[in-house]
């Protein structure tokens, strides 16, 4: 964070204009990288271009995409990062599994699970707002505590195998996995309303310059509560999709999602400094990142290589972001 404080000497002229233009630039770069990855994989192995590949990519995209919406909302509104997503994902997945096993109506289970996710985000916001503590450290600590508590509660869990819920998670619609559709709907809806409604614009304003936002009468506290609760609801949606589509899971199963989600959010142009980012671009960044593991398989590399590439992509992405913040945008 400290680095962004250097070189703020020239105030930005037209944030709205830059918001749109930068979005386009990021979109072009990520789209090109994605196309290049697909092209290289297809040249190497023509059978890469198959319905099976599309299914695999779409499947990987679903949960990462939903979590990335929450992460992007936190980033755009100046909350930096929500590092507690691994806990909220598994907490809600566990809740959904247990409630379904208890024989509750699926619709009721969905509502309850989302409420638990919202509650988790609200609890984070309570500590952040009332302690005036940095969200990065607060969510780091609550993730630490939450994961340990989950390990005390269960070792391995699974949603009832014969339930309609699991059948939904296995099925597909119009050639794409069922769990892909809630993700695309969430991205489109949040991406549409964020820059077009009063509440969404408030969140962007708080992220851009919280003092200016405050001077315009926007409540920082209410915004923080709303954003972190929304991030919790996103984790709840992801938890439902996760419980429906994955087999048995452990408390640590959520940890693998954190980095791809943060990388997706940053690749979508969400600035860690706040105030900038386009939710729709998440589709491109998540699509690109989710193609990496499938491509690796076609190149004969084990899934272990996935982390190396994702890490490298993230370093390059944040370097470009930092370079742009320092030399181009400001």
């Amino acid at each position, binding site marked *: 964070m400290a680095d962004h404080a250097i070189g703020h000497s020239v105030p930005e002229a037209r944030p709205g204009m830059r918001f749109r233009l930068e979005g386009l630039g990021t979109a072009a770069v990520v789209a090109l990288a994605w196309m290049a990855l697909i092209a290289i994989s297809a040249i190497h192995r023509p059978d890469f271009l198959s319905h099976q590949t599309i299914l695999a990519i779409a499947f990987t995209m679903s949960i990462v995409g939903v979590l990335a919406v929450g992460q992007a909302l936190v980033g755009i509104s100046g909350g930096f990062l929500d590092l507690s997503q691994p806990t909220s994902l598994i907490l809600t997945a566990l809740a959904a599994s247990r409630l379904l096993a208890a024989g509750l109506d699926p619709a009721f289970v969905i509502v309850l699970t989302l409420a638990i996710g919202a509650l988790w985000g609200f609890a984070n916001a309570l500590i952040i707002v009332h302690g005036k503590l940095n969200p990065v*450290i607060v969510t780091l600590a609550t993730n630490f505590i939450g994961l340990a508590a989950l390990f005390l509660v269960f070792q391995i869990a699974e949603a009832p195998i014969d339930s309609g819920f699991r059948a939904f998670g296995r099925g597909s619609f119009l050639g794409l996995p069922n769990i892909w559709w809630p993700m695309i709907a969430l991205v489109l809806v949040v991406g549409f309303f964020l820059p077009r409604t009063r509440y969404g614009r408030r969140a962007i304003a708080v992220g851009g310059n919280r003092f200016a936002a405050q001077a315009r009468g926007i409540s920082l506290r209410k915004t923080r509560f709303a954003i972190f609760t929304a991030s919790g609801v996103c984790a709840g949606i992801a938890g439902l999709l996760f419980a429906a589509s994955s087999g048995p899971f452990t408390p640590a199963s959520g940890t693998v999602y954190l980095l791809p989600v943060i990388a997706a959010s940053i690749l979508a142009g969400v600035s860690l400094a706040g105030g900038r980012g386009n939710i729709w671009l998440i589709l491109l960044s998540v699509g690109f990142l989710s193609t990496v593991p499938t491509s690796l398989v076609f190149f004969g590399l084990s899934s272990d290589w996935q982390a190396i590439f994702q890490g490298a992509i993230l370093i390059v992405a944040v370097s470009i972001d*930092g370079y742009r913040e320092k030399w181009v945008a400001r």
Partner: protein
Amino acid sequence: MTDAAAGRPDLPQSIAHHPVRDVVTGPVGSIGITLIVVVAAGLLLIGPRFLSASNITIAGQFVAIPMLIGAFASFALLAGVVDLSIGSMAGVGAAIFGALVLSGWGLAPAIALTLGICLVFGAINALAVVGFHADPIAATLGMLTGLRGATYVIVEAYGQSGSLFAFHEGLFAFTNMLVWSLPLIFLIALAVTALAAIVVGKTRLGRHVRAVGGDPLAAARAGISVPRVRTGALLLSAFGAGLGGILFVGQLGAVSRLLGFGLEFQVYAALMIGGYSILRGGVGSPVGGALGFLAIAGAANILDLSGISPYYVNIIVGGLLLAAVLLDRIRGGDAYE
């Protein structure tokens, strides 16, 4: 902590300090009190056995390597560039070293090559963070993931079923050696901490690091090269993590693919409890950081001896972490709104 800087025109001035009050309310004071509470709790719950030589040996073995890694990583925190990749760096260092030992390399060249490779990774961190002004948390999170993947790949290639057996007799004897009934590596960790405390508190270099972390603009105006200090700090942090990885191989005789997983959180939680901040440079001291490690090791040891699930340690660490940052904020740290 900042007293040493007072009276020097080229460094940011601190507000006048109250010497006696500072001892209690300062970062080292509050972690010292926490440690005393932990020891008292240990004596109450466990009895005199808690402070017996054998128990201190066990706790010392457990905490020595993270403490050593923390002593090096604390320079990056102090310079205002947190390096989250240290856990994976220790893991990949251990994997590289283990693979070299398995391939018949001698101890000295294997150590040299391992540390050299870790320094290259540290240089990549520095290139992104210092050269391109990438956010340190995000960039080193990328390095964390990448190196975790590299650890998987190396352990997969050289080991069997997720573990790489690389027993080195000399190194095993070294890492498990007892001196005055205390583990040698624990004493080394204490010595490195003391050395770091002297460098940070008493030398020109230490003052520069603190100045860069505290206010980079003011430090630059005072003629200190901010990029050079931050690059050095990130290299030092990578070096310490690599060294820790090598010692892990000696201590354990094997490299699991998950070696060092989550270690960065353990280390930074201990350092933050000890008065450092991962978001604000220029605060904290090596002594406070070491006391943070001891407090957590003591708490873990109490739970261990009482037969309580180790997961409660993480809950306690998380709670302590929140309390520590709250205390830091009340002491004048940046309030987040």
